[in-house]
């Protein structure tokens, strides 16, 4: 790791980013026909599609919560999304990610409005390249908004980590493989509450503090992109409505 350093003397990373710089992100809302809400993201080399169905009746019935809706997320990797083909179906990693993402969304969805119902969120990783859980959570939040699910806020997610002994934002694949720590977080932008936080590796309290600050800041920037995507989606819908209205008025 000495030669081929991940961060050079000037604080520039292999792909040219600064330590607190995100990979390029493209986000689009409303990309599928069948789902109640959907969104698509390209984040660095990651490509993730999200779809939302619901609120709809929860099955089987004994899983229903009489007081509020369930939020059930399913994170899934396409077999061809990774270099070594992944066998179809959930593995332990997918089950854990699905669980922590479900819990994060459960915090912001106004679940009390839909007793006995379920809101189902499907995240399909079509191309994977480090940071897929943050990517998936970020795009799923947009899909939830696109589906009109009432939420207290649109949550946003990002990771920080450590490589070459430096705290850096949004690790790419090489940094993830060779780095010393990876810390994905998700926040409620309005309140800075942490709704997802995982970490493995090796990091000091001071590094954690500075990285967490970096990632919270980044989540706010990401949240702006989420809102932009929804604004563009809304503009399209509004234009269409206008067109419909115009045509129905006989213009």
């Amino acid at each position: 790791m000495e030669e081929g350093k991940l961060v050079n003397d000037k604080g520039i990373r292999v792909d040219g980013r600064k330590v607190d710089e995100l990979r390029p992100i493209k986000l689009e809302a409303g990309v599928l026909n069948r789902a109640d809400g959907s969104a698509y993201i390209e984040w660095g080399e990651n490509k993730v599609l999200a779809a939302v169905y619901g609120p709809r009746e929860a099955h089987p019935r004994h899983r229903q919560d009489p007081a509020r809706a369930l939020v059930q997320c399913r994170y899934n990797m396409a077999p061809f999304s990774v270099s070594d083909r992944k066998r179809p179906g959930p593995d332990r990693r997918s089950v854990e990610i699905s669980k922590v993402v479900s819990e994060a969304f459960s915090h912001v969805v106004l679940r009390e409005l839909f007793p006995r119902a379920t809101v189902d969120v499907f995240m399909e990783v079509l191309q994977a390249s480090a940071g897929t859980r943050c990517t998936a959570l970020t795009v799923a939040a947009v899909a939830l908004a696109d589906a009109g699910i009432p939420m207290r806020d649109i949550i946003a997610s990002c990771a920080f980590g450590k490589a070459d002994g430096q705290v850096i934002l949004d690790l790419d694949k090489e940094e993830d493989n060779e780095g010393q720590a990876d810390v994905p977080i998700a926040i409620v932008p309005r309140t800075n509450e942490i709704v997802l936080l995982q970490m493995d590796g090796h990091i000091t309290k001071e590094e954690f503090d500075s990285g967490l600050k970096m990632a919270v800041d980044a989540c706010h920037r990401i949240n702006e992109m989420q809102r932009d995507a929804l604004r563009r989606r809304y503009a399209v819908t509004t234009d269409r409505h206008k067109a419909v209205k115009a045509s129905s008025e006989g213009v």
Partner: protein
Amino acid sequence: MDVVSELLRDHIYKMAASGKRVDGRAPEEYREIKVRKGYAKNAEGSARINLGKTEVLVGVKMILGEPYPDRPKEGSIVTTMELIPMASPTFEAGPPRENAIELARVVDRGIRESKTVDLGKLCIIEGEKVWIIFIDIHALDYGGNLFDASSFGALAALTNAVVPASKINGEDYPLEVEHHPISITATKIQDVIVFDASLDEDRVADARLTVATDENGHIRAMQKGLKGSFTLDEVDYVVKTAKKLADEIRPKVVG
């Protein structure tokens, strides 16, 4: 799959019986086909297919493995289909059920039995090392006629695939695709036949007949599905029409 009101059933049938369709198409008219090859960079080949409101992503992975003992000089092809719940409110997570299995097997036969890929060319060391091709079909948006969309996607992804020979100290080279079978699906609603069923047409379908024909007009695969039946004349009509439509569609898929 869905419970559809009798009203919708009647409406679609009445239109079809008078040669019309809910979305304005002619009975033998396919919806717009969009093919984006090379979409999934971690796959050896891939294609994202839009067929009207249906969207399918197919990835081809090539893995080193051992040949079957009874076919030591041949590689193999494995086709999987996941009807992931993203694509439709009626699809459920879990291991593939009969619909997904039928779909995967029909696509698989359309590729394998029609010798689209020469399995002999996938052999590296006889009896020891061969390429195994995984064709994984991921349905993203179900808007009717998954059979054809999946089949187009599989063929398109194969024509996009690169054999990763650099893994065995060779040089990567494009996978040779020997034939271009195009699957065409006819859907029967009561006594009327339409092609490339939309979602609503799929929901009220009585019978389905898929016919894959190659660039020479030869039949390469067939599958009748659902609880209805076809007369001999109808089979004849569907096969003839399938050849005609396949020739129109092939360039869009093969590119």
